[in-house]
Protein backbone atom coordinates (compact mmCIF):
# COMPACT_ATOMS: atom_id res chain seq x y z
CA UNK A 1 0.00 0.00 0.00
CA UNK A 2 1.06 3.59 -0.57
CA UNK A 3 2.77 5.49 2.23
CA UNK A 4 1.81 8.99 1.09
CA UNK A 5 -0.69 10.18 -1.51
CA UNK A 6 -0.70 13.65 -3.05
CA UNK A 7 -4.17 14.92 -3.94
CA UNK A 8 -4.02 17.06 -7.08
CA UNK A 9 -7.34 18.75 -6.49
CA UNK A 10 -9.29 21.01 -4.12
CA UNK A 11 -12.75 21.33 -2.54
CA UNK A 12 -14.98 18.47 -1.53
CA UNK A 13 -13.31 15.84 -3.72
CA UNK A 14 -9.91 16.60 -2.17
CA UNK A 15 -11.50 16.08 1.27
CA UNK A 16 -13.15 12.90 -0.01
CA UNK A 17 -9.78 11.47 -1.03
CA UNK A 18 -8.07 12.63 2.18
CA UNK A 19 -10.77 10.81 4.16
CA UNK A 20 -10.31 7.57 2.21
CA UNK A 21 -6.52 7.78 2.65
CA UNK A 22 -6.77 8.38 6.41
CA UNK A 23 -9.03 5.37 6.80
CA UNK A 24 -6.47 3.30 4.88
CA UNK A 25 -3.65 4.61 7.06
CA UNK A 26 -2.02 6.59 4.23
CA UNK A 27 -0.47 10.03 4.82
CA UNK A 28 -1.77 12.84 2.61
CA UNK A 29 -0.31 15.86 0.85
CA UNK A 30 -2.59 18.70 -0.26
CA UNK A 31 -1.52 21.06 -3.01
CA UNK A 32 -3.14 24.44 -3.30
CA UNK A 33 -3.13 27.85 -4.90
CA UNK A 34 -2.48 30.98 -2.91
CA UNK A 35 -6.20 31.84 -2.66
CA UNK A 36 -6.72 28.42 -1.10
CA UNK A 37 -4.24 28.93 1.76
CA UNK A 38 -7.13 28.57 4.23
CA UNK A 39 -9.07 25.88 2.35
CA UNK A 40 -10.31 22.83 4.17
CA UNK A 41 -8.20 20.34 2.19
CA UNK A 42 -5.12 22.31 3.26
CA UNK A 43 -6.22 22.19 6.91
CA UNK A 44 -7.06 18.49 6.92
CA UNK A 45 -4.18 17.01 4.92
CA UNK A 46 -1.08 15.91 6.80
CA UNK A 47 1.05 18.22 4.68
CA UNK A 48 0.24 21.04 2.29
CA UNK A 49 2.28 22.64 -0.47
CA UNK A 50 1.35 25.92 -2.10
CA UNK A 51 2.01 25.34 -5.80
CA UNK A 52 0.87 28.47 -7.59
CA UNK A 53 -1.55 31.34 -7.90
CA UNK A 54 -5.33 31.33 -8.25
CA UNK A 55 -5.49 30.63 -11.99
CA UNK A 56 -5.85 26.86 -12.45
CA UNK A 57 -3.10 26.91 -15.09
CA UNK A 58 -0.71 28.19 -12.43
CA UNK A 59 -1.76 25.70 -9.74
CA UNK A 60 -4.24 22.85 -10.07
CA UNK A 61 -3.38 22.31 -13.76
CA UNK A 62 0.33 23.06 -13.31
CA UNK A 63 1.91 19.65 -13.92
CA UNK A 64 5.53 20.54 -13.11
CA UNK A 65 4.50 22.21 -9.85
CA UNK A 66 2.38 19.21 -8.80
CA UNK A 67 5.16 16.75 -9.61
CA UNK A 68 7.66 18.96 -7.75
CA UNK A 69 5.35 19.00 -4.73
CA UNK A 70 5.22 15.20 -4.80
CA UNK A 71 9.04 15.11 -5.06
CA UNK A 72 9.73 17.41 -2.13
CA UNK A 73 7.18 15.68 0.13
CA UNK A 74 8.14 12.15 -0.88
CA UNK A 75 4.65 11.16 -2.04
CA UNK A 76 4.47 7.85 -3.87
CA UNK A 77 1.09 8.25 -5.59
CA UNK A 78 -1.18 10.99 -6.94
CA UNK A 79 -4.98 11.08 -6.84
CA UNK A 80 -6.38 13.51 -9.41
CA UNK A 81 -10.00 13.70 -8.12
CA UNK A 82 -12.39 14.78 -10.89
CA UNK A 83 -11.99 17.71 -13.31
CA UNK A 84 -8.57 19.43 -13.54
CA UNK A 85 -6.02 16.74 -14.53
CA UNK A 86 -8.19 13.69 -13.85
CA UNK A 87 -8.66 12.71 -17.50
CA UNK A 88 -5.36 14.03 -18.78
CA UNK A 89 -3.45 11.01 -20.16
CA UNK A 90 -0.26 13.07 -20.52
CA UNK A 91 -0.34 13.86 -16.80
CA UNK A 92 -0.78 10.19 -15.97
CA UNK A 93 2.22 9.40 -18.18
CA UNK A 94 4.30 12.11 -16.54
CA UNK A 95 3.46 10.70 -13.12
CA UNK A 96 4.59 7.25 -14.23
CA UNK A 97 7.84 8.66 -15.68
CA UNK A 98 8.54 10.38 -12.36
CA UNK A 99 7.97 7.20 -10.37
CA UNK A 100 4.57 8.25 -9.04
CA UNK A 101 1.55 5.97 -9.23
CA UNK A 102 -1.36 7.74 -10.88
CA UNK A 103 -4.52 6.59 -9.06
CA UNK A 104 -6.71 6.01 -12.07
CA UNK A 105 -6.82 4.10 -15.34
CA UNK A 106 -3.89 3.39 -17.64
CA UNK A 107 -3.03 6.34 -19.93
CA UNK A 108 -4.03 4.36 -23.03
CA UNK A 109 -7.53 3.82 -21.63
CA UNK A 110 -7.85 7.50 -20.76
CA UNK A 111 -6.74 8.32 -24.25
CA UNK A 112 -9.03 6.07 -26.19
CA UNK A 113 -12.14 6.75 -24.11
CA UNK A 114 -11.34 10.47 -24.05
CA UNK A 115 -11.65 10.86 -27.82
CA UNK A 116 -15.37 10.81 -28.70
CA UNK A 117 -15.01 9.18 -32.10
CA UNK A 118 -12.54 6.53 -30.97
CA UNK A 119 -14.74 5.87 -27.93
CA UNK A 120 -17.84 5.40 -30.08
CA UNK A 121 -16.01 2.99 -32.36
CA UNK A 122 -14.67 1.03 -29.39
CA UNK A 123 -18.06 0.90 -27.68
CA UNK A 124 -19.66 -0.34 -30.89
CA UNK A 125 -17.05 -3.08 -31.20
CA UNK A 126 -17.72 -4.08 -27.57
CA UNK A 127 -21.43 -4.52 -28.24
CA UNK A 128 -22.48 -1.52 -26.13
CA UNK A 129 -25.78 -0.17 -27.54
CA UNK A 130 -25.34 2.95 -29.67
CA UNK A 131 -27.65 5.61 -30.97
CA UNK A 132 -27.78 5.85 -34.68
CA UNK A 133 -25.02 8.17 -35.72
CA UNK A 134 -22.38 8.99 -38.31
CA UNK A 135 -18.62 8.73 -38.40
CA UNK A 136 -16.53 11.92 -38.69
CA UNK A 137 -18.28 14.06 -41.31
CA UNK A 138 -16.29 15.01 -44.42
CA UNK A 139 -18.23 18.20 -45.17
CA UNK A 140 -21.65 19.87 -45.08
CA UNK A 141 -23.07 17.59 -47.80
CA UNK A 142 -21.91 14.49 -45.96
CA UNK A 143 -23.54 15.91 -42.82
CA UNK A 144 -26.87 16.45 -44.60
CA UNK A 145 -26.76 12.96 -46.14
CA UNK A 146 -26.15 11.41 -42.72
CA UNK A 147 -28.77 13.63 -41.07
CA UNK A 148 -31.39 12.48 -43.57
CA UNK A 149 -30.41 8.84 -43.19
CA UNK A 150 -30.75 9.01 -39.34
CA UNK A 151 -33.80 11.28 -39.47
CA UNK A 152 -34.06 14.82 -38.08
CA UNK A 153 -33.82 16.12 -35.41
CA UNK A 154 -30.16 15.22 -34.97
CA UNK A 155 -27.44 16.33 -32.58
CA UNK A 156 -24.31 17.78 -34.20
CA UNK A 157 -21.34 17.04 -31.98
CA UNK A 158 -17.62 17.80 -31.82
CA UNK A 159 -15.33 14.76 -31.53
CA UNK A 160 -13.18 16.59 -29.01
CA UNK A 161 -16.11 17.94 -26.93
CA UNK A 162 -17.69 16.58 -23.78
CA UNK A 163 -19.67 17.64 -20.73
CA UNK A 164 -22.24 19.27 -22.96
CA UNK A 165 -19.77 21.48 -24.82
CA UNK A 166 -19.68 21.46 -28.62
CA UNK A 167 -23.26 20.21 -29.13
CA UNK A 168 -26.02 21.62 -31.37
CA UNK A 169 -29.59 20.40 -31.94
CA UNK A 170 -30.38 20.47 -35.67
CA UNK A 171 -34.00 20.12 -36.73
CA UNK A 172 -33.63 20.21 -40.55
CA UNK A 173 -31.17 20.15 -43.43
CA UNK A 174 -31.19 23.93 -44.04
CA UNK A 175 -30.21 24.61 -40.43
CA UNK A 176 -27.41 22.07 -40.76
CA UNK A 177 -26.03 23.96 -43.75
CA UNK A 178 -25.47 27.12 -41.66
CA UNK A 179 -24.62 25.39 -38.38
CA UNK A 180 -21.94 23.06 -39.75
CA UNK A 181 -19.18 25.57 -40.56
CA UNK A 182 -19.94 27.49 -37.38
CA UNK A 183 -19.70 24.36 -35.19
CA UNK A 184 -16.51 23.37 -37.00
CA UNK A 185 -14.90 26.72 -36.24
CA UNK A 186 -16.01 26.49 -32.61
CA UNK A 187 -14.61 22.99 -32.25
CA UNK A 188 -11.37 24.07 -33.86
CA UNK A 189 -11.06 26.95 -31.41
CA UNK A 190 -12.34 25.16 -28.33
CA UNK A 191 -10.86 21.69 -28.64
CA UNK A 192 -8.16 22.16 -31.31
CA UNK A 193 -10.01 19.50 -33.28
CA UNK A 194 -12.59 20.43 -35.92
CA UNK A 195 -14.01 16.90 -36.36
CA UNK A 196 -17.80 16.72 -36.17
CA UNK A 197 -20.40 13.91 -36.23
CA UNK A 198 -24.18 13.64 -35.98
CA UNK A 199 -26.39 11.44 -33.78
CA UNK A 200 -30.12 10.85 -33.41
CA UNK A 201 -31.60 13.50 -31.09
CA UNK A 202 -34.00 12.38 -28.37
CA UNK A 203 -36.61 14.95 -27.33
CA UNK A 204 -37.12 13.69 -23.75
CA UNK A 205 -33.88 11.91 -22.90
CA UNK A 206 -32.87 10.60 -19.54
CA UNK A 207 -29.24 10.44 -18.43
CA UNK A 208 -28.41 6.99 -17.05
CA UNK A 209 -24.88 5.94 -16.14
CA UNK A 210 -23.31 2.76 -14.84
CA UNK A 211 -20.56 2.63 -12.25
CA UNK A 212 -17.83 0.15 -13.04
CA UNK A 213 -14.79 -1.01 -11.12
CA UNK A 214 -11.98 -3.30 -12.28
CA UNK A 215 -8.79 -4.30 -10.49
CA UNK A 216 -6.65 -5.53 -13.41
CA UNK A 217 -6.36 -8.90 -11.68
CA UNK A 218 -9.52 -10.39 -13.06
CA UNK A 219 -11.90 -8.62 -10.73
CA UNK A 220 -14.62 -6.71 -12.60
CA UNK A 221 -17.79 -5.26 -11.11
CA UNK A 222 -20.71 -3.39 -12.62
CA UNK A 223 -22.22 -1.59 -9.61
CA UNK A 224 -25.60 -0.57 -10.92
CA UNK A 225 -26.80 2.67 -12.42
CA UNK A 226 -27.31 6.28 -11.47
CA UNK A 227 -30.01 8.58 -12.81
CA UNK A 228 -28.60 12.03 -13.53
CA UNK A 229 -31.41 13.59 -15.56
CA UNK A 230 -31.80 16.66 -13.35
CA UNK A 231 -29.48 18.87 -15.36
CA UNK A 232 -29.11 22.49 -16.27
CA UNK A 233 -27.23 23.09 -19.53
CA UNK A 234 -25.79 19.59 -19.33
CA UNK A 235 -24.53 20.23 -15.78
CA UNK A 236 -25.85 17.68 -13.32
CA UNK A 237 -27.68 19.21 -10.35
CA UNK A 238 -29.21 16.24 -8.51
CA UNK A 239 -28.58 12.51 -8.95
CA UNK A 240 -30.17 9.33 -7.67
CA UNK A 241 -29.53 5.60 -7.47
CA UNK A 242 -31.11 3.42 -8.62
CA UNK A 243 -33.03 4.94 -11.54
CA UNK A 244 -36.78 4.43 -11.37
CA UNK A 245 -37.02 4.71 -15.16
CA UNK A 246 -34.76 1.79 -16.10
CA UNK A 247 -36.33 -1.46 -17.24
CA UNK A 248 -35.01 -4.31 -15.03
CA UNK A 249 -34.35 -6.44 -18.10
CA UNK A 250 -32.26 -3.72 -19.72
CA UNK A 251 -30.43 -3.25 -16.41
CA UNK A 252 -29.53 -6.96 -16.35
CA UNK A 253 -28.48 -6.91 -20.03
CA UNK A 254 -26.33 -3.87 -19.46
CA UNK A 255 -24.65 -5.36 -16.42
CA UNK A 256 -23.63 -8.37 -18.52
CA UNK A 257 -22.59 -6.30 -21.55
CA UNK A 258 -20.47 -3.83 -19.57
CA UNK A 259 -18.87 -6.61 -17.55
CA UNK A 260 -17.73 -8.28 -20.74
CA UNK A 261 -16.62 -4.98 -22.27
CA UNK A 262 -14.51 -3.97 -19.27
CA UNK A 263 -12.96 -7.43 -19.03
CA UNK A 264 -12.20 -7.44 -22.79
CA UNK A 265 -10.46 -4.06 -22.80
CA UNK A 266 -8.49 -4.75 -19.62
CA UNK A 267 -9.67 -1.49 -18.11
CA UNK A 268 -8.39 -0.86 -14.56
CA UNK A 269 -9.78 1.46 -11.82
CA UNK A 270 -13.18 3.11 -11.40
CA UNK A 271 -15.08 4.40 -14.39
CA UNK A 272 -18.52 5.42 -15.53
CA UNK A 273 -20.32 4.56 -18.75
CA UNK A 274 -22.88 7.23 -19.61
CA UNK A 275 -26.00 6.52 -21.60
CA UNK A 276 -28.87 8.45 -22.99
CA UNK A 277 -32.21 6.71 -22.52
CA UNK A 278 -34.94 7.46 -25.06
CA UNK A 279 -38.70 7.67 -24.46
CA UNK A 280 -39.07 3.93 -25.04
CA UNK A 281 -36.44 3.04 -22.44
CA UNK A 282 -33.67 2.14 -24.90
CA UNK A 283 -30.12 3.08 -23.92
CA UNK A 284 -27.51 4.48 -26.24
CA UNK A 285 -23.87 5.05 -25.37
CA UNK A 286 -22.75 8.63 -24.77
CA UNK A 287 -19.31 8.40 -23.26
CA UNK A 288 -17.09 6.65 -20.79
CA UNK A 289 -15.58 8.74 -18.01
CA UNK A 290 -12.27 7.40 -16.79
CA UNK A 291 -12.37 8.95 -13.30
CA UNK A 292 -14.33 9.00 -10.07
CA UNK A 293 -17.41 11.15 -10.57
CA UNK A 294 -18.99 13.88 -8.46
CA UNK A 295 -22.10 11.74 -7.96
CA UNK A 296 -20.31 8.52 -6.90
CA UNK A 297 -21.74 8.73 -3.32
CA UNK A 298 -25.27 7.75 -4.39
CA UNK A 299 -23.85 4.43 -5.57
CA UNK A 300 -21.81 4.08 -2.36
CA UNK A 301 -24.93 4.65 -0.26
CA UNK A 302 -26.94 1.86 -1.92
CA UNK A 303 -24.15 -0.72 -2.20
CA UNK A 304 -22.27 0.05 1.03
CA UNK A 305 -18.85 0.18 -0.65
CA UNK A 306 -16.24 2.98 -0.46
CA UNK A 307 -15.41 3.46 -4.14
CA UNK A 308 -12.49 5.83 -3.56
CA UNK A 309 -10.87 3.41 -1.11
CA UNK A 310 -11.32 0.62 -3.70
CA UNK A 311 -9.78 2.87 -6.37
CA UNK A 312 -6.75 3.54 -4.17
CA UNK A 313 -6.34 -0.13 -3.26
CA UNK A 314 -6.54 -1.13 -6.92
CA UNK A 315 -3.87 1.42 -7.86
CA UNK A 316 -1.67 -0.13 -5.16
CA UNK A 317 -2.04 -3.52 -6.84
CA UNK A 318 -4.68 -4.99 -4.54
CA UNK A 319 -7.82 -6.85 -5.48
CA UNK A 320 -11.37 -5.58 -5.10
CA UNK A 321 -12.31 -6.18 -1.46
CA UNK A 322 -15.92 -7.30 -1.88
CA UNK A 323 -17.17 -10.54 -3.42
CA UNK A 324 -18.44 -10.83 -6.96
CA UNK A 325 -22.12 -11.46 -7.50
CA UNK A 326 -25.30 -9.68 -8.46
CA UNK A 327 -25.45 -6.17 -7.01
CA UNK A 328 -28.77 -5.54 -5.30
CA UNK A 329 -29.12 -1.88 -4.34
CA UNK A 330 -30.20 -1.49 -0.72
CA UNK A 331 -32.80 1.28 -0.66
CA UNK A 332 -32.54 4.53 -2.58
CA UNK A 333 -30.10 7.45 -2.47
CA UNK A 334 -30.31 11.04 -3.70
CA UNK A 335 -27.53 13.61 -3.95
CA UNK A 336 -28.01 17.38 -4.10
CA UNK A 337 -25.07 19.46 -5.28
CA UNK A 338 -25.06 22.61 -3.19
CA UNK A 339 -23.51 25.38 -5.27
CA UNK A 340 -22.57 28.95 -4.39
CA UNK A 341 -24.88 30.55 -6.92
CA UNK A 342 -28.05 32.53 -7.24
CA UNK A 343 -30.89 29.98 -7.19
CA UNK A 344 -32.74 31.79 -10.00
CA UNK A 345 -30.14 33.32 -12.29
CA UNK A 346 -27.48 30.65 -11.58
CA UNK A 347 -24.87 33.42 -11.35
CA UNK A 348 -21.91 32.17 -9.29
CA UNK A 349 -21.80 33.72 -5.83
CA UNK A 350 -18.32 33.52 -4.34
CA UNK A 351 -17.48 35.30 -1.09
CA UNK A 352 -17.20 34.71 2.63
CA UNK A 353 -19.44 32.11 4.26
CA UNK A 354 -20.48 33.77 7.52
CA UNK A 355 -22.38 30.85 8.98
CA UNK A 356 -22.50 27.25 7.86
CA UNK A 357 -24.74 24.59 9.32
CA UNK A 358 -24.66 21.26 7.51
CA UNK A 359 -27.60 18.89 7.85
CA UNK A 360 -27.30 15.75 9.97
CA UNK A 361 -29.26 12.88 11.44
CA UNK A 362 -30.37 9.48 10.20
CA UNK A 363 -29.62 8.66 6.57
CA UNK A 364 -27.76 11.90 5.80
CA UNK A 365 -24.20 12.10 4.52
CA UNK A 366 -22.44 15.39 3.83
CA UNK A 367 -19.36 15.69 1.64
CA UNK A 368 -18.24 19.27 1.94
CA UNK A 369 -15.15 21.31 1.27
CA UNK A 370 -16.01 24.47 3.20
CA UNK A 371 -16.56 25.77 6.72
CA UNK A 372 -18.10 28.77 8.45
CA UNK A 373 -15.70 31.66 7.88
CA UNK A 374 -14.23 30.29 4.64
CA UNK A 375 -14.14 32.69 1.72
CA UNK A 376 -15.30 30.87 -1.44
CA UNK A 377 -12.84 31.86 -4.19
CA UNK A 378 -14.17 33.08 -7.51
CA UNK A 379 -11.51 31.18 -9.44
CA UNK A 380 -13.04 27.68 -9.23
CA UNK A 381 -16.32 25.88 -9.67
CA UNK A 382 -19.11 26.76 -7.30
CA UNK A 383 -19.66 23.36 -5.64
CA UNK A 384 -19.70 23.88 -1.85
CA UNK A 385 -21.00 20.57 -0.59
CA UNK A 386 -22.92 17.48 -1.56
CA UNK A 387 -25.79 16.38 0.61
CA UNK A 388 -26.67 12.72 0.18
CA UNK A 389 -29.86 11.19 1.61
CA UNK A 390 -30.52 7.48 1.91
CA UNK A 391 -33.85 5.81 2.59
CA UNK A 392 -35.45 2.39 2.30
CA UNK A 393 -37.55 3.72 -0.59
CA UNK A 394 -37.35 6.65 -3.00
CA UNK A 395 -40.14 8.42 -1.09
CA UNK A 396 -38.25 8.03 2.17
CA UNK A 397 -35.06 9.39 0.55
CA UNK A 398 -36.99 12.37 -0.85
CA UNK A 399 -38.59 13.15 2.54
CA UNK A 400 -35.21 12.88 4.20
CA UNK A 401 -33.50 15.13 1.67
CA UNK A 402 -36.33 17.64 1.89
CA UNK A 403 -35.85 18.02 5.64
CA UNK A 404 -32.05 17.99 5.29
CA UNK A 405 -32.26 20.95 2.91
CA UNK A 406 -34.39 22.78 5.48
CA UNK A 407 -31.53 22.55 7.94
CA UNK A 408 -28.75 23.37 5.46
CA UNK A 409 -27.76 26.93 6.31
CA UNK A 410 -25.26 29.14 4.54
CA UNK A 411 -25.22 32.84 5.32
CA UNK A 412 -23.12 35.44 3.54
CA UNK A 413 -23.43 33.80 0.12
CA UNK A 414 -26.31 32.63 -2.03
CA UNK A 415 -26.76 28.94 -2.73
CA UNK A 416 -29.02 26.80 -4.91
CA UNK A 417 -30.69 25.19 -1.86
CA UNK A 418 -34.03 26.84 -2.81
CA UNK A 419 -33.77 25.30 -6.30
CA UNK A 420 -33.26 21.85 -4.78
CA UNK A 421 -36.32 22.38 -2.58
CA UNK A 422 -38.38 23.22 -5.67
CA UNK A 423 -37.10 20.12 -7.48
CA UNK A 424 -37.98 17.83 -4.58
CA UNK A 425 -41.47 19.37 -4.38
CA UNK A 426 -42.05 19.11 -8.13
CA UNK A 427 -44.78 16.61 -9.07
CA UNK A 428 -42.95 15.42 -12.21
CA UNK A 429 -39.79 14.74 -10.22
CA UNK A 430 -41.70 12.99 -7.44
CA UNK A 431 -43.45 10.74 -9.96
CA UNK A 432 -40.05 9.50 -11.10
CA UNK A 433 -41.02 10.05 -14.74
CA UNK A 434 -38.88 12.98 -15.78
CA UNK A 435 -36.28 13.75 -18.43
CA UNK A 436 -33.26 16.04 -18.70
CA UNK A 437 -35.71 18.78 -19.68
CA UNK A 438 -37.19 18.92 -16.16
CA UNK A 439 -35.30 22.00 -15.01
CA UNK A 440 -35.89 23.86 -18.24
CA UNK A 441 -39.62 23.22 -17.87
CA UNK A 442 -39.57 24.24 -14.19
CA UNK A 443 -37.85 27.52 -15.11
CA UNK A 444 -40.46 28.21 -17.81
CA UNK A 445 -43.31 27.48 -15.37
CA UNK A 446 -41.76 29.76 -12.80
CA UNK A 447 -41.32 32.56 -15.34
CA UNK A 448 -44.92 32.25 -16.57
CA UNK A 449 -46.22 32.18 -13.00
CA UNK A 450 -44.86 35.68 -12.49
CA UNK A 451 -47.28 38.37 -13.75
Amino acid at each position, binding site marked *: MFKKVLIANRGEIALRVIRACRELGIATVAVHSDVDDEALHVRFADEAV*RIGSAAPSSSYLNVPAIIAAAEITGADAVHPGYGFLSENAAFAETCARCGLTFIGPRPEDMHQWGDKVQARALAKRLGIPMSEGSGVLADVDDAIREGERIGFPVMLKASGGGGGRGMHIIRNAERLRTAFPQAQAEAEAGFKNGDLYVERFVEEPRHIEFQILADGRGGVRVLGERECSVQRRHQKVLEEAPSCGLDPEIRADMNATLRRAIADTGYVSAGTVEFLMDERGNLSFMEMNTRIQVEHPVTEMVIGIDLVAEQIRIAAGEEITFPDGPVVPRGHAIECRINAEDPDTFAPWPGPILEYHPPGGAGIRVDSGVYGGFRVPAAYDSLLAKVIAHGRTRDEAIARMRRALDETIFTGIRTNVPLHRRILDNAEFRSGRYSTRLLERMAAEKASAKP
Partner: protein
Amino acid sequence: MEIDLERLRELMQAMGEFDVTRVELEDEEERLVLERGHLASAPQFTHAAPAAAPSPAPASAPSHGAAAEPEGSFITSPFVGTFYNAPSPDSPPFVNVGAEVAPGQTLCIVEAMKLMNEIEAEHACKILEVLIDNGQPVEFGARLFRIAPR
Protein backbone atom coordinates in the same frame (compact mmCIF):
# COMPACT_ATOMS: atom_id res chain seq x y z
CA MET B 1 -20.64 69.15 15.91
CA GLU B 2 -16.93 69.48 15.70
CA ILE B 3 -15.12 66.39 14.64
CA ASP B 4 -11.65 66.17 16.03
CA LEU B 5 -10.40 63.79 13.42
CA GLU B 6 -6.95 63.46 14.87
CA ARG B 7 -8.17 62.43 18.29
CA LEU B 8 -10.67 60.05 16.77
CA ARG B 9 -7.98 58.45 14.65
CA GLU B 10 -5.82 58.05 17.72
CA LEU B 11 -8.73 56.48 19.58
CA MET B 12 -9.37 54.12 16.69
CA GLN B 13 -5.75 53.13 16.61
CA ALA B 14 -5.84 52.42 20.35
CA MET B 15 -8.93 50.28 19.87
CA GLY B 16 -7.10 48.20 17.30
CA GLU B 17 -4.04 47.96 19.47
CA PHE B 18 -5.91 46.60 22.48
CA ASP B 19 -8.53 44.68 20.56
CA VAL B 20 -11.32 46.89 21.83
CA THR B 21 -14.48 46.44 19.81
CA ARG B 22 -16.72 49.16 21.16
CA VAL B 23 -16.34 52.58 22.71
CA GLU B 24 -19.31 54.63 23.85
CA LEU B 25 -18.84 58.10 25.26
CA GLU B 26 -21.67 60.33 26.28
CA ASP B 27 -21.98 63.64 28.01
CA GLU B 28 -24.73 66.21 28.22
CA GLU B 29 -24.05 67.53 24.79
CA GLU B 30 -22.62 64.73 22.74
CA ARG B 31 -22.58 61.04 22.25
CA LEU B 32 -19.85 59.09 20.53
CA VAL B 33 -19.97 55.42 19.60
CA LEU B 34 -17.12 53.60 17.90
CA GLU B 35 -17.41 49.97 16.94
CA ARG B 36 -14.76 47.82 15.48
CA GLY B 37 -14.82 44.60 13.67
CA HIS B 38 -18.30 43.60 12.50
CA LEU B 39 -17.42 43.17 8.87
CA ALA B 40 -13.89 42.38 9.79
CA SER B 41 -15.04 39.71 12.21
CA ALA B 42 -15.84 37.13 9.56
CA PRO B 43 -12.40 37.03 7.99
CA GLN B 44 -10.85 37.25 11.46
CA PHE B 45 -12.89 34.24 12.40
CA THR B 46 -11.62 32.48 9.32
CA HIS B 47 -8.15 33.46 10.01
CA ALA B 48 -8.21 32.58 13.67
CA ALA B 49 -9.67 29.19 12.95
CA PRO B 50 -6.70 27.32 11.53
CA ALA B 51 -4.49 28.55 14.34
CA ALA B 52 -6.93 27.92 17.17
CA ALA B 53 -8.41 24.71 15.82
CA PRO B 54 -6.96 21.43 16.97
CA SER B 55 -5.90 20.67 13.44
CA PRO B 56 -5.69 16.89 13.01
CA ALA B 57 -2.16 17.22 11.77
CA PRO B 58 -0.79 20.69 11.40
CA ALA B 59 0.12 21.43 7.82
CA SER B 60 3.83 20.90 8.06
CA ALA B 61 4.42 22.43 4.68
CA PRO B 62 8.02 22.29 3.59
CA SER B 63 8.50 26.01 3.90
CA HIS B 64 5.98 28.49 5.15
CA GLY B 65 8.05 31.61 4.63
CA ALA B 66 5.51 33.67 6.51
CA ALA B 67 6.21 32.12 9.90
CA ALA B 68 8.65 34.60 11.36
CA GLU B 69 7.46 37.56 9.27
CA PRO B 70 10.63 39.59 9.14
CA GLU B 71 9.94 43.07 7.82
CA GLY B 72 11.12 44.33 4.50
CA SER B 73 11.10 43.39 0.83
CA PHE B 74 11.52 39.87 -0.39
CA ILE B 75 12.30 37.80 -3.41
CA THR B 76 9.89 34.86 -3.43
CA SER B 77 9.98 31.54 -5.22
CA PRO B 78 7.94 31.35 -8.42
CA PHE B 79 8.23 27.53 -8.34
CA VAL B 80 7.76 24.59 -6.04
CA GLY B 81 10.98 22.66 -5.71
CA THR B 82 14.34 22.40 -4.01
CA PHE B 83 16.38 25.51 -3.31
CA TYR B 84 20.09 25.60 -4.27
CA ASN B 85 22.28 28.60 -3.54
CA ALA B 86 25.04 27.56 -5.95
CA PRO B 87 25.27 26.04 -9.44
CA SER B 88 26.96 22.90 -8.02
CA PRO B 89 27.95 21.53 -4.60
CA ASP B 90 31.55 22.67 -5.11
CA SER B 91 30.81 26.15 -6.42
CA PRO B 92 30.57 29.27 -4.32
CA PRO B 93 27.03 30.67 -3.73
CA PHE B 94 25.48 32.79 -6.47
CA VAL B 95 25.08 35.60 -3.91
CA ASN B 96 26.06 36.23 -0.32
CA VAL B 97 24.54 38.51 2.30
CA GLY B 98 25.55 42.05 1.52
CA ALA B 99 25.83 41.43 -2.22
CA GLU B 100 24.72 44.23 -4.52
CA VAL B 101 22.75 42.57 -7.27
CA ALA B 102 22.10 43.79 -10.81
CA PRO B 103 18.83 43.14 -12.68
CA GLY B 104 18.96 39.77 -14.43
CA GLN B 105 21.64 38.39 -12.15
CA THR B 106 21.10 34.78 -11.05
CA LEU B 107 20.35 34.48 -7.32
CA CYS B 108 19.70 30.79 -6.86
CA ILE B 109 18.23 27.66 -8.42
CA VAL B 110 14.87 26.03 -7.67
CA GLU B 111 14.99 22.48 -8.95
CA ALA B 112 11.84 20.60 -9.89
CA MET B 113 11.44 17.51 -12.07
CA LYS B 114 15.20 17.47 -12.64
CA LEU B 115 14.94 20.94 -14.17
CA MET B 116 17.22 23.58 -12.74
CA ASN B 117 15.21 26.82 -12.75
CA GLU B 118 17.47 29.81 -12.30
CA ILE B 119 15.87 32.60 -10.28
CA GLU B 120 17.03 36.02 -11.43
CA ALA B 121 16.80 39.42 -9.81
CA GLU B 122 14.16 41.58 -11.49
CA HIS B 123 15.53 44.84 -10.14
CA ALA B 124 18.78 46.06 -8.67
CA CYS B 125 18.88 45.33 -4.96
CA LYS B 126 21.01 44.43 -1.99
CA ILE B 127 20.77 41.00 -0.32
CA LEU B 128 20.06 41.45 3.40
CA GLU B 129 19.37 37.86 4.33
CA VAL B 130 19.21 34.39 2.75
CA LEU B 131 16.08 32.81 4.22
CA ILE B 132 16.34 29.22 2.97
CA ASP B 133 19.11 26.73 3.63
CA ASN B 134 20.79 25.08 0.70
CA GLY B 135 18.98 21.92 -0.42
CA GLN B 136 15.73 22.76 1.36
CA PRO B 137 12.33 22.41 -0.32
CA VAL B 138 10.34 25.58 -1.05
CA GLU B 139 6.73 26.12 -2.05
CA PHE B 140 5.24 28.67 -4.43
CA GLY B 141 5.62 32.14 -2.95
CA ALA B 142 8.12 31.07 -0.30
CA ARG B 143 10.44 33.93 0.69
CA LEU B 144 13.98 33.23 -0.47
CA PHE B 145 15.86 36.47 0.17
CA ARG B 146 15.22 39.58 2.19
CA ILE B 147 16.43 42.51 0.15
CA ALA B 148 16.77 46.25 0.11
CA PRO B 149 15.66 47.68 -3.22
CA ARG B 150 17.97 50.24 -4.73
